[in-house]
């Protein structure tokens, strides 16, 4: 019972919070442009509206196109279950580790890319082709970073990694963590189609990757795809927040008998912090040419590898 309640809470937090992150990022961007910007909860309204709408399905598509939104959403939510937002609750970590998380996200991507090809439109194919390229370039650095953190924790389970770093103070001053943080941050930017790699706000065939893939979706299907993308973003943010910014010890210092509520609030604060960081990156960089993305990926790879290397030298 305890377990079920905590899984429920975990899913609830991840699913409910995910669209908010996009709202925060949009707000910060609007602020930087001296605009008012859309309301913080705009994406919730959008999703609500989309769920109510009729769907249009292309004639050329097959059943794959129709099941993809459900599979993508299912896989992403399952992955979200494996990345605990709160370490005090019993977690699902026996079911799998960070490798499973990465491959579940890979499953979501597999189907999303297939659905892009299924519509038979050039946009879908183009988005798919680019998405595949980006994922191939980023996979090695993601695994190297995760394995290095795993080495420190002595386990590849996400939960153990978070527990191991929660025991220490502010980690970003340690070179290993700083390097890995930067590497994973680049991956976060690229995987969630943020500005230097992809532009979520545009519908131009020259620039879009993720939007091109889901171009044919409408109504409920589109809502599911958008929501899944948000949850995926939150998964990466949670990884960053709970592994690299373990403020639990501060919390324990501030209020020794911290409740679930206060630790969730702390988690929220960390998520907001990283969301702002993402927004600042989006504001301060320009969209890269597609063939400059490998440079970014190489940088991420090198950061991850140097991080691993520093771990070899210092041990931590």
């Amino acid at each position: 019972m305890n377990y079920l309640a905590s899984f429920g809470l975990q899913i609830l937090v991840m699913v409910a919070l995910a669209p908010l992150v996009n709202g925060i990022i949009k707000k910060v961007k609007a602020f930087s442009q001296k605009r008012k910007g859309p309301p913080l909860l705009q994406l919730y309204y959008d999703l609500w509206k989309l769920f109510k709408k009729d769907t249009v399905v292309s004639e050329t598509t097959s059943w794959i196109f129709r099941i993809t939104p459900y599979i993508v959403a299912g896989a992403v939510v399952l992955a979200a279950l494996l990345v605990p937002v709160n370490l005090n609750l019993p977690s699902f970590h026996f079911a799998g580790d960070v490798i499973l998380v990465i491959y579940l996200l890979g499953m979501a991507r597999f189907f999303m890319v297939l659905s892009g090809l299924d519509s038979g439109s050039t946009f879908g194919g183009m988005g798919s082709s680019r998405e595949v390229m980006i994922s191939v370039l980023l996979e090695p650095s993601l695994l190297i970073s995760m394995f290095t953190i795993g080495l420190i924790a002595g386990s590849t389970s996400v939960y153990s990694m978070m527990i191991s770093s929660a025991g220490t103070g502010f980690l970003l001053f340690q070179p290993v963590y700083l390097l890995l943080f930067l590497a994973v941050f680049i991956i976060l930017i690229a995987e969630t189609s943020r500005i230097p790699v992809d532009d979520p706000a545009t519908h131009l065939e020259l620039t879009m990757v993720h939007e091109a893939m889901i171009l044919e979706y409408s109504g409920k299907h589109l809502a599911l795809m958008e929501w899944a993308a948000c949850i995926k973003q939150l998964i990466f943010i949670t990884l960053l927040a709970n592994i690299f910014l373990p403020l639990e010890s501060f919390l324990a210092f501030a209020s020794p008998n911290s409740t679930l509520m206060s630790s969730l609030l702390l988690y929220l604060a960390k998520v907001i912090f990283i969301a702002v960081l993402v927004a600042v990156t989006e504001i301060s960089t320009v969209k890269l040419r597609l063939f400059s993305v490998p440079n970014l990926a190489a940088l991420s790879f090198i950061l991850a590898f140097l991080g691993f290397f520093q771990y070899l030298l210092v041990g931590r």
Partner: protein
Amino acid sequence: MLTTNQIIFSVMLSLYTLSALCALVFYRKQRLANIVPNILSGTGALCGIWLSLTQLIGLQPEQVALIRWISSIPNVTVNLSLDKLSAFFLFILSVVNVGAALYSIGYLTHYYNRRNIGLFNFCFNIFNITMIGVITASHMIFFFIAWELMSLFSYFLVVFEADSSENQRAGTIYLIMTHLAAAFLMIAFILIHQFTNSWQIGGSLQDLPPLIKNLLFACFLIGFGTKAGIIPLHIWLPYAHPAAPSNVSALMSGVMIKIAIYGMIRFIMEALGSGFQWWGMVILIIGIITTVLGAAYSFMENNIKRLLAYCSIENIGIILTGFGAACWSYAANYPVLGALALLACLIHIFNHAIIKGILFFGAGAIYNATHTKDMESLGGLVKSMPFLGVFMLVASLAIAAIPPLNGFVGEWLIYQSLFASLEVAPLGLKVVIMLAVAGLAIGSALAAASFIKMFGISFLGLPRSTRAKEAKDPSFTIILSMGLFALLSLGVGIFPGVLVRLLDGVVYNLSGITISGELQGDSFLLYYPLTIGKNSLAPLAVLIGGCFITGMVFLAVKLLGGSTRQRKYITWDCGFTGLTSRMQYTATGFSKPLRIIFRIIYRPSRELKVEEGVSPYFHKAMKYVVTTQPVFEQFLYRPLVKGLVDFAKVVKMKVQTGSVHTYLVYIFVTILILFVYFAAS
């Protein structure tokens, strides 16, 4: 007195032999020549499964002698025995063969009136028998003969459709490479005999001088590596697989190249005792290179069967990564770790055999239905061939290591064994292992990309040719064979513990460590956790969780959205009229970004030919050709062959003069030298 094992084995062998004979007997009646031998060999394969399972489950003593026949001619003996390692490979062979027999019944119909089915089935069954011979041989000369026959009969099968010069060339390259391998094996066997004075396989060779051990290692690595298709000795593979009929490809890729790995385990690990630490490192590095390059080349291919061939190379790389880690661990005296890595490697061997079975079967069925292997003229097959589509999707997911299918379990174990070795390895090796992790990651991402391309381009979208549009689902046996394998793939993915239990004995025999204690795979209803250290994986829980969540999502959407309609309409075509299949993304276009990024390994060249019409603004025709260069052929084999040919020319001019007197002088001088040699010694 015959034991049960010997009886089953004899029944199996005689069924295969009978099947081969039947094929010859029904030489002229093609329906009979197709159905009877396949049923017989399928039954033989079932016997094989029975035999190997009884051996694997551990009801039998460690090694059972099967057939022992010693002739009066020295060194000509037939000595077959089955230990657990052999039993595991016999198991793989038999499982793939059950599928292949079922599949062949449907598949061979398309050769009716074109080719001689009887001849094909004869070669096919003899090929099977020789493979069984290699697996069970415990005498080096017999091993070698069986090995050579295996190569020869697979060559016959590769050139079965010999009318195209392309296929003949493929066969020739295969024959040359495989004999290169055999030469190295022969050197190794003779060396072993020189030092141990025995032809017995299975004796320990650990007391040999280090130099000889290193030499043996090199010979075995090159010899078996060529057959396995490690890069840069892989060049025969991408030619042979597209040329061969699909059931042969499935068997070659699923089983034959694994038999090379069997040889490595048998000789490098068991006999030589994993030797020195650098051996493992070398194998690991070869494994990384093979994984990454194999996957990279597979992504560039537009021919389905070539894509699959390169994918086999990639998987051999993954298997070798595990094997290298195992070798290193044994040499560095971490037996538990070695056992884990070996287990991962063996599980991946099994998984790959199954998945490759489905994929090659599917590729053959597509070829039968559409008469093309080129993805550029396929498309939309998921609608015209729905069953095939489902099974190919399952196989693509499995080989891209998507949970909860079996490919993921294998890769997960290999990642775990690498992770565990990272904790104990010396510093230099740590860097190599981390690079192996990166290589595996990029390899599996590229494999996923290749299969997205394979499935997305040939099964989805609009059909690019009328043949693709009019294709029909293949016959029932083909669907059945693929369906069985797909079920097996899912089953192993959800209950990997069963396979772990089976393999425990194999690993125990090789290393003296039982690994199932480390992998606490207890099967009660809900979970099937594989735990290593603190890392665990519960495939069944993942599957149930995934299904539950997807169901909840479905319900939530229904509840939130209420009743909405679904409308069918054309794909958005930017306001132009009608989207045709020629406007779709092509396979070449799909792989273009990576071709540009990794141009250093692909070396692509582009060519645009324009046929000008009346005005320079309206061309009559345009032809755009993109090619990638096979780098290894270009820069390694071409110069090598050229050097060899030049050398031969020199020999022809200087030594083989054509005058009889010169030849007589050669003979005379040789005899004189021999006399002098004996006089001196």
